[in-house]
Every structure is written in C-alpha cells, then in structure tokens.
C-alpha cells in the first residue's frame, strides 16, 4: 500500500471534528448528498476517502473552510456499509495510511477534493520499559471487551498490536481525553516512540494543571 514515490494524488475529503488514526475505527452516519455520492463512488471503485480535522482558528477567513483543515489526515477504508434509507447510510471505516494535504478545492456539489502525498506508515517499534504497564492495561481492556463479546461496538479492530508503539499510541490517542489540536500534533508525529511519550506527558501535564487550579 505504501506507494510514496508516486506523484501527488487526488482524493475526496471528509472534514470532521475528530481525528482518525491508522488502524482506528470510525462510524459515520452519512446523509448529505455530497457524502452519499462520495461513499457510493468509494464502494464502486474500491477507493478510500480522506479524513481531515476541522480546526477552528479565529484568525482565518471564514469564507474559505479549507483554511481550517488539518495539514495531516488519514485515509479511510469503508468496512461496513448499511443503507438504512436511500439517503441515510450507516458506515464503519478504518484508518489505513496518513497523508499530507497539499491543497484542497471544493467541487460544485460541495465535496472537497484534496491533493495529497502519502506518508510512510509507522515502523514497527517495540514498547519501551516505561510504557509496558500502559500497553498491558490496554491489552487487558481489549480482553474484557472480547470476553464480553462487545467487540462489534468497540473502537478496536484486529489485529491488536499491543506490543507495537505505533498501534498502542494511536489507540491511546483515540481513547484518552486529548484536545483536537493535540491529537493532530500526535498524528503528525512520525516517530511512534515519541508519540507514546507525548501522550503520557499531555495527560500528566493536564492533571498537574487541574490540581493547581483547584
């Protein structure tokens, strides 16, 4: 899938108020015409769409929504598709590969098309000693969900790579209370080991700040 040498390619964009991480699961309810068309096309052509975050910046010009798109996004592959009504699809997709958004342009139907360059997937990186406890805990949570047969509703998708920094840091970034801006910084961080370090720092710093405020 990693095809970094190819020239920039164009993909439909789904700007959201959240971040999709590689191997993460995202459930989307689709009802706007532009996205119904996009999903149909992705299914027909077996292609992916791009999830980018909308980061509100008070200084940007409201006229151009694309100015608030995050610079890094993730490709989403549709896994589950349920057309409950002609104009209402329940979908479940998962993140595959990160990309850099080079430019974006809106089409007549309102759909944004992004010109992107794919980013390298995380190298497999073992969990360092200081994060072993956290990855073990994540593993235990996944076991509970599996043993209670709740995987269908859970934000985890096999394979569970609990001994890999990239996979663990991405799942933690999804689960933990981290701001959208910080999540985007985490997504942009190419070293999975550093991403894992940053997550613990963000959580412990927040805690310190809360304690100081109370």
């Amino acid at each position, binding site marked *: 899938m990693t095809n970094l040498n190819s020239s920039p390619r164009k993909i439909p964009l789904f700007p959201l108020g959240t971040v999709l991480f590689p191997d993460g699961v995202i459930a989307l309810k689709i009802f706007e015409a532009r996205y119904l068309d996009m999903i149909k096309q992705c299914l027909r052509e077996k292609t992916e769409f791009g999830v980018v975050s909308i980061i509100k910046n008070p200084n940007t010009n409201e006229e151009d929504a694309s100015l608030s798109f995050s610079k890094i996004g993730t490709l989403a592959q549709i896994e589950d598709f349920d057309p409950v009504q002609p104009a209402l699809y329940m979908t479940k997709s998962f993140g595959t590969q990160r990309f850099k958004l080079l430019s974006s342009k809106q089409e007549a139907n309102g759909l944004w098309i992004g010109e992107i360059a794919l980013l390298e997937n995380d190298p497999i990186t073992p969990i360092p000693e200081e994060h072993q406890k956290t990855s073990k*805990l994540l593993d235990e*949570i996944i*076991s*509970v969900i599996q043993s209670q*047969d709740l995987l269908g509703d859970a934000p985890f998708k096999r394979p569970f790579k609990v001994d890999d920094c990239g996979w663990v840091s991405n799942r933690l970034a999804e*689960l933990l209370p981290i701001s959208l801006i910080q999540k985007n910084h985490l997504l942009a961080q190419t070293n999975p080991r550093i991403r894992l370090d940053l997550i613990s720092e963000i959580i412990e710093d*927040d805690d310190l700040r809360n304690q100081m405020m109370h």
Partner: protein
Amino acid sequence: MLDELIRKTIREMVGGSSGPPVAFLNPKGDRGLFGPESIAWRVHADFISMMIGGISSLVLQALHPQALAGVWDHSSFRKDLKGRLGRTAYFIAATTYGSHEMAHEIIDKVNRIHKHIHGSDEFGKPYIATDPRLLAWVHLTETLSFLEAYQSYRQPKLTRQEQDQYFKEMKVLGEMLGAQNLPDTLKGTQEAIESYLPELHYGERAKSIIQLLDDFPSNFQSKPFVKLISKAGFNNLPSWAHAELKKPIPSTLEKILVNKGIDLIAIPIRDALKDGVAAHSYRRVYG
C-alpha cells in the same frame, strides 16, 4: 445472550440467588430507611461503582489490625470471599432499598452477631466488635469508597452538596450499627479516616487479604472483567493507602485508561441489571 452472561457473572461474584428480587416489592408504599429521593438510593443503585467501592473498602478495612482481627477470627472471609461479598451486598441492598422491617431485621441480626465477636488482634491487643471506633472505621471507609467510585465511574457526578447529603444519610445507618458521632460531610469523613492513620498496619494478615483480592479474578469465567473491576478498586483508594500498601500511586494515565475500559463495558452491564433491587423497590413505593 450477553445479558445472561453478565447477570451470571455478577450473581457469581456476589454469590447471590437467582431470580428477580421480589422480596423488595412489599409492603406497598413502605419507603424504607431512606426513600427513593435519597442520594443513597442513587449511589447504591450503580452496581459497577458498588463493586469497585466494595473492593477498595475491603482493602482499607484490612489495614486496621483490630477491624481485621474480627473478620480474621470469626468470618469465612478467607475461605469464601464470594459469600462474604454476597452478604455485604445483601446488607446494603436490604438497608438501602428494603422496607423498614427488612432493614431493621438485618441490622438487628448484624448487631446480635457483633456481640459475640471479641478476641485479640495480631499484636495481642484485645478487641470487641461492638467497639464504636472499629464500627466507625468500617462505616467511614465503606461510605467514602462507594462515593469515590460513584464520582469516578458514573455520570452525572454528584454536586458537593449531594455528596455531603450522602454522608448525612449514611450516618443514620452507621449509628444504628453502633458507631457514634459519625461525620455528616465528605470533608468530615476524610478527616475522620485520616485520624486512624497512626493505628493502621500493613502486616502479614493484611498482606494475605490483599493477595486474596489480587487472586480473586481467577475464580471467574469472565476473569478479564473481574480483573478490570478489581484494578479499578485499587485505583479508587486514597493516595495515602497506596503508600501504606507499598504500591506505586497509579498514574493519571492509568486511572483514565481503566476508567475508559469500564466505560466501554458499563452500558451493557447497566442495561442487563436495570430490573434489579432498586427498580423493584421503586415499584413498592410508587406502585
């Protein structure tokens, strides 16, 4: 299918009987000790918080040599942890939600049993189970543990005023069991607990109780679930207790992660248990 598995695990955990709790349906209109508007009804209805709080209160109680001695010498606790948890769960259910008669019956029974319990702790110091200071220790640690668990695992959280209200309500129950001058606020409860710190001891007996709790999950078919609940119980301890147990204070990340894990399983569990004691008791009061 899932509902049944959860119900089975929970019945197994507290050793309770099967079937709906019909004993709580009568007599009609009886509001029991607290009534449906009480905070006690709200807090004690949340099974997940009660299991988590139950584990932390057992840990805290084990740290007091004399409170522990009573259990050590006179209860089947060490052989039958499930049974003991089941009896505690029944006591809480009957006193919180039961009719006046049901509540008084179990309180009298416990008071009668306490009269016969006395001996010496592991240091040879004599104790009696009717000692108000020991009864207060059990009451204080239990109420604080339940409340802290509720505040961590249930939304919406109680306001400060509602938290104080909980201690005010529970003070009545604690004093019916022989404790005296119990605090009626959160702050008062925390301070009262801290006044016991010099008396606490983490010795061989307490260690074996902690070991018992650590091993507890392996008795279950749904071991991962019980293990997560048990971990949440340890995270729910006040920070001085981690030092006392010579365990590292859990990091914020660890706490939040356990919390998230519980959240992910809480909805189906709460759903499976929705027609429990509290629901039957509402029907008794309101028809």
